[in-house]
């Protein structure tokens, strides 16, 4: 997805002279052409995430559209107050693009994990939260909303779904229709969810947009059994679901990253297995839920 990010942003930088790129000393080699081609609008700004976010707010206030890119925990958690006040409170146009998702950098340990990003940023009113599942979806989403006047977070991962959907901000996709449960899944968890439920009679709704949230598709595909599969902290989007289904009676089940520090290293796939987000574990967990119903 990072290669696509470079392509998409390079194209936007070339076509829209109001855009600026600020790298937190991450992705510098990948963006080498942009840095060379647009020395006045593309910067390796340094390792100072808090000031970078505030600085980009100053740029946004004076007519530029910033893209800020670094690893998820430094972008979201270190600079949270700057995102909250400078962009959320002031409702400014800005694009914040992370890499690493929950634990793509599994071997680097907890300092580089960020399963809390969706939950944390959801606490900032006005902040759009987008989770492309493939490179093509990233290109589509970033082009749709980079200049929409709002602060937007893009959650990128090195691990993609097997196929792309036609995605739009604030609109979810109906992947499969069934009767035993409605499964809501996000970003790059779609392929695992499809594979792990291939013999099940379930509805699958695919979301690339947490905020704005497509409540209509969920209402249209309501089932008394709702299962949320989140490749980030479990329960991060429960509020959107419960708000949407406020007048309904249903059972809600969460499959996601447990709210614990993951004291393991290794590879992303190994951590998936450890936390129960590999295909086999998702299949077993959904089966258990369906057996209980």
């Amino acid at each position, binding site marked *: 997805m990072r290669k696509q990010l470079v392509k998409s942003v390079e194209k936007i930088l070339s076509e829209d002279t109001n855009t600026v790129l600020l790298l937190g000393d991450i992705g510098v080699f990948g963006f080498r052409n942009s840095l060379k081609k647009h020395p006045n609008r593309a910067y390796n700004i340094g390792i100072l995430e808090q000031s970078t976010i505030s600085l980009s707010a100053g*740029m946004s206030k004076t007519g530029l559209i910033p893209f800020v890119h670094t690893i998820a925990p430094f972008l979201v958690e270190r600079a949270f107050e700057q995102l909250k*006040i400078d962009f959320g409170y002031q409702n400014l146009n800005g694009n914040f693009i992370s890499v690493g998702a929950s634990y793509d950098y599994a071997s680097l340990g907890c300092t580089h994990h960020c399963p809390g990003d969706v939950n944390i940023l959801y606490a900032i009113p006005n902040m759009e939260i987008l989770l492309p599942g493939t490179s093509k979806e990233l290109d589509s989403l970033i082009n749709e909303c980079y200049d929409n006047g709002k602060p937007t977070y893009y959650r990128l991962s090195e691990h993609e779904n097997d196929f792309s959907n036609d995605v739009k901000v604030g609109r979810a996709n109906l992947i499969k229709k069934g009767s035993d449960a409605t499964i809501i899944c996000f970003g790059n968890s779609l392929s695992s969810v499809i594979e792990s439920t291939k013999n099940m009679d379930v509805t699958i709704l695919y979301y690339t947009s947490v905020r704005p949230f497509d409540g209509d598709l969920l209402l249209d595909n309501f089932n008394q059994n709702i299962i949320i599969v989140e490749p980030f902290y479990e329960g991060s989007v429960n509020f959107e679901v419960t708000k949407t289904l406020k007048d309904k009676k249903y059972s809600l089940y969460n499959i996601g990253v447990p709210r614990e520090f993951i004291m393991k290293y290794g590879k992303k796939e190994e951590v998936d297995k450890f936390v129960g987000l590999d295909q086999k574990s998702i299949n077993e967990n959904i089966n258990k839920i369906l057996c209980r119903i």
Partner: protein
Amino acid sequence: MKNKLIEKIVRIAHKANEGHIGSSLSILDILFVLYNDILNVESIRKNDLDRDRFILSKGHASLGLFVILSEFNLLEENVFNFCEFNSSLGGHPCDKLKFVESSTGSLGHGLPIAVGMALSNKIQNFNGNVYTLIGDGEANEGTIWESALLASHHKLNNLFCIMDHNHSGDRALNIDSIMDKFNSFGWECLEVDGHDHIELIRSMSKKCSKPTFILANTTKGKGIDFMENNPEWHHKSPTDEQLKEIIDKL
């Protein structure tokens, strides 16, 4: 003139039972000079994209800013509405208020935002300068020093950072040798009496090739003897008797 502004600040704080009077008074001369002599106020009034911009980074002194904006006809609301439920004039400035360039209140945000504006002005070949006012206590924040590094690296000679050195920080983490510190970060550094208009005008008008840091030595609570350098008045409003005493003295 100055006593009239001081009286207004105190009357408003008394009415609202809110406001950081001490800081509002220590920055009053700096703000007056900025709007009277330095900023292109007509361009601000016309909301030109290329305009001089001022950010009150130490947002808790909003009462001082609002009184000055009112004085220069840049406030569309009655300043005596300060901190009322439906007022736009809060205890910290909000950018939804016309002519307030940025919302502030959490310390250490205004300077990096000003750095972004100054860099943006360079990118877009704008002529406007960017001015921000920070506190000495605020300089405890790491973003002040991150910004000092950024401004110098990007040679932002269109940026002026004024420090209201009213010694608020002395009781916690005192910043020693402030001039040396900013100087070592690559700024043009000037030290002035923050209540002397001539010195303030000279320092804010100086052109150079670097960002400019102005250490403005001020007195917290300036103009009201029993408030001067008295930390009790950092965030306190006068009683009816104290208000009468202040007005009599002024």
